């Protein structure tokens, strides 16, 4: 389905084209050797959002300077040993590619650009090593020129800011999250599609990109902190909502069910969440908190049903606090001013840790694969002695670097190949039929306007962004517009065919070395999370809560889009691990405030949880948790529910959470009698 481009798309396309022609004109007027590089740079960095254009531009400048400096350093030293030079180039590219994948913010572009700028500058220079400085200098100049043109035009001519787009995305997210919350609270609200849950986590992760761009958006740079705060709270909502859903489901399965007053209260809360009125709803939130506190029944004689309800109530209270915080932050962002005196209502966990999950094995493998591809392409080029082979290696290197971070790079490289191939006939028509008729710069600009304006409108559609960029960039580079018209069919054909062959080589190589899809990355992610859980439960990360929570939440964000994309149903995978993780942290945090017997029992539970996940790691797959773990949980639960006070309540909730997460189908919990409780723990301290 394809809609006609809107006026916004046309405006963006016209702006970009204007910037590109401006760059081309200045480049020609200054007598730069390859003004078309400035033109293609404009098309590479241009993004409908001004902040994104600027940040990408800055990273591109720095990356190019680093790559250019490396070329000036390496080429004169190794030019007489082509194989050694190829080795140096491929090692450089691989190393920087590693760094680039190690950074998940838009800053990774800096390293990626340094990675493939070296082959771009070094390879054309091998036949004339004394010119490498000039080539590096002119490439840097052309790229800086292109970026300056792109950012000045983007900033001055009808700028479109990141903030409104970000607000729209946050608004959509609120609606999805609100629907899930409402559905969890009361079956009266229509069931949202399970896929929205997966989308919620992925959307939070994608906010990262927007926030990084926000820092480059002159008018909104001061909102970065507030937006980060909002993002961390949004991600905390996920485990709470997931746990609330599971707890209420478990409670509804029991014959007592959920007590009627609580059902009514939850319906009111669901309505409050859907209305999302911000500060106006504050009084209502306070009233809900009081009513919830009254709805809880606990004490030594509490039954399984009461424990579930107490747990659900605690989660509801957290949910209301978090939701209130999110609304406050959203309003602050919408008003455009940060309130420094603002205090969050939710303070259970310190949020906003910056820890991110990296799969270093996969990163190393992907970088090594790309690096080896470049080395082999260089060897092939040297062996064949094809004069224009350099552009094959260059485009091959670009293709393999660009998509190295993907789980499944092959389909994307195939798209790259298709559009690079499509741009050859387009360029040929332009270069040999149309441009010869142009004698002035103005007519040239007019002639280029037709195809470039049309393709540029596609760039704002997410589906076509890459196709449009590839088409415009490749066409601009293959056109190779220079000061004087000197189109030579052989040279054009040679270099463009070589470029496409290079991409084809990268495609074949990727299909050979990285045939496994998202499945592998997903399994590795799950395994990493089990390993983390085993270590956390065993107590080796004790105390570093902000780091651990952000690590777990980040991994969920990575896992969830992959789960959604895979065919087989993994149900609650990812969310379950997250809930177990938070319960573990809860227990570790509060156990030392409990009496000795309860403390010991909880320690045994944690050891069993650690053992269970170690088992999962060793067997490379999800295992059924052992029945002995359930007995440990029951024992600890019997001991803690007899206690009073906040710490006991938190520990009790965490144990309930563990029980319903790990044993969703187990029989109801029955409190153990005093003798049974005391017996196994007597005389031993783990």
């Amino acid at each position, binding site marked *: 389905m394809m809609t006609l481009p809107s006026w916004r798309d046309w405006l963006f396309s016209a702006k970009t084209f204007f910037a590109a022609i401006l760059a081309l004109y200045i480049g020609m007027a200054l007598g730069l050797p390859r003004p078309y590089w400035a033109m293609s740079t404009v098309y590479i960095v241009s993004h409908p959002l*001004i902040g994104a254009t600027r940040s990408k531009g800055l990273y591109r400048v720095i990356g190019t300077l680093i790559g250019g400096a490396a070329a000036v350093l390496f080429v004169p030293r190794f030019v007489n040993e082509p194989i050694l030079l190829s080795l140096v180039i491929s090692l450089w590219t691989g190393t920087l590619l590693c760094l680039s994948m190690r950074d998940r913010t838009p800053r990774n572009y800096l390293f990626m650009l340094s990675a493939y700028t070296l082959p771009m500058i070094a390879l054309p220079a091998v036949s004339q090593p004394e010119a490498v400085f000039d080539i590096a200098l002119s490439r840097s100049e052309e790229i800086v020129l292109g970026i300056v043109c792109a950012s*000045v035009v983007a*900033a*001055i001519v009808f*700028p479109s800011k990141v903030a409104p787009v970000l607000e729209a995305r946050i608004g959509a997210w609120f609606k999805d999250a609100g629907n899930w919350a409402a559905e969890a609270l009361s079956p009266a609200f229509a069931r949202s599609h399970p896929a929205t849950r997966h989308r919620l986590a992925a959307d939070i992760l994608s906010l990262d990109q927007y926030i990084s761009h926000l820092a480059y958006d*002159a*008018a909104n740079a001061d909102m970065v902190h507030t937006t980060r705060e909002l993002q961390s709270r949004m991600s905390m909502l996920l485990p709470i909502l997931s746990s609330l859903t599971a707890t209420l489901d478990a409670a509804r399965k029991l014959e007592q069910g959920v007590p009627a007053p609580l059902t009514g209260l939850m319906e009111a809360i669901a309505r409050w969440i859907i209305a999302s009125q911000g500060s106006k709803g504050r009084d209502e939130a306070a009233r809900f908190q009081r009513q919830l506190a009254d709805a809880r029944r606990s004490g030594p004689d509490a039954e399984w049903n009461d424990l579930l309800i107490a747990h659900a109530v605690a989660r509801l209270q957290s949910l209301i606090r978090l939701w209130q915080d999110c609304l406050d932050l959203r309003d602050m962002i919408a008003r455009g001013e940060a309130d420094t005196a603002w205090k969050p209502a939710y303070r259970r966990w310190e949020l906003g840790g910056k820890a991110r999950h990296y799969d270093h094995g996969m990163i190393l493998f992907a970088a090594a694969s790309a690096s080896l591809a470049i080395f082999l392409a260089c060897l092939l080029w040297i062996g064949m002695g094809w004069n224009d082979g350099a552009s094959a290696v260059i485009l091959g290197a670009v293709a393999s670097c660009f998509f190295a971070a993907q789980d499944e790079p092959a389909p994307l490289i195939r798209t790259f190949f298709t559009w690079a191939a499509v741009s050859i006939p387009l360029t040929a028509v332009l270069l040999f039929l149309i441009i010869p008729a142009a004698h002035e710069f103005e007519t040239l600009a007019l002639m280029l306007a037709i195809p470039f304006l049309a393709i540029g409108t596609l760039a704002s559609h997410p589906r076509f962004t890459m196709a449009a960029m590839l088409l415009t960039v490749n066409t601009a580079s293959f056109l190779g517009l220079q000061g004087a018209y000197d189109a030579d069919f052989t040279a054009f054909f040679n270099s463009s065919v070589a470029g496409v062959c290079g991409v084809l080589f990268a495609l074949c190589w990727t299909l050979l070395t990285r045939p496994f899809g998202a499945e592998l990355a997903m399994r590795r992610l799950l395994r990493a999370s089990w390993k983390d859980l085993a270590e956390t439960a065993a107590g080796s990360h004790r105390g570093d809560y902000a780091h651990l929570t952000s690590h777990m939440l980040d991994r969920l964000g990575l896992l969830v889009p992959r789960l959604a994309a895979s065919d087989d149903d993994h149900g609650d995978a990812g969310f379950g691990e997250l809930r177990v993780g938070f319960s573990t942290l809860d227990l570790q945090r509060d156990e030392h405030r409990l009496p000795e017997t309860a403390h010991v029992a909880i320690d045994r539970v944690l050891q069993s949880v650690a053992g269970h996940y170690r088992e999962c790691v060793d067997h490379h797959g999800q295992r059924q948790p052992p029945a002995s773990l359930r007995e440990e949980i029951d024992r600890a639960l019997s001991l803690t529910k007899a206690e009073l006070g906040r710490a006991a309540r938190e520990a009790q909730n965490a144990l309930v959470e563990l029980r319903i997460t790990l044993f969703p189908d187990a029989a109801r919990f029955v409190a153990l009698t005093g003798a049974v409780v005391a017996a196994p723990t007597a005389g031993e301290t783990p």
Partner: protein
Amino acid sequence: MIGEVDLYGVFIPSLLVLMLIALAVTGCLRFVLLRLGVYKLVWHRSLFNFALYVIVLGGTVALTRGLHP
């Protein structure tokens, strides 16, 4: 205006040096204007900044004209 600055053997066009100076001056001016709250009255922040830069650059060039005979 076409003169070049000799920086340890590397010849840099003097316009580039002036542009960098103007950039630094504009940066300071923007900071001061932000503190004074002038930006609240500005409609198009980027356009304002750009115009400010061009004015400062023009001023710098005019001031240093005497140095390059």
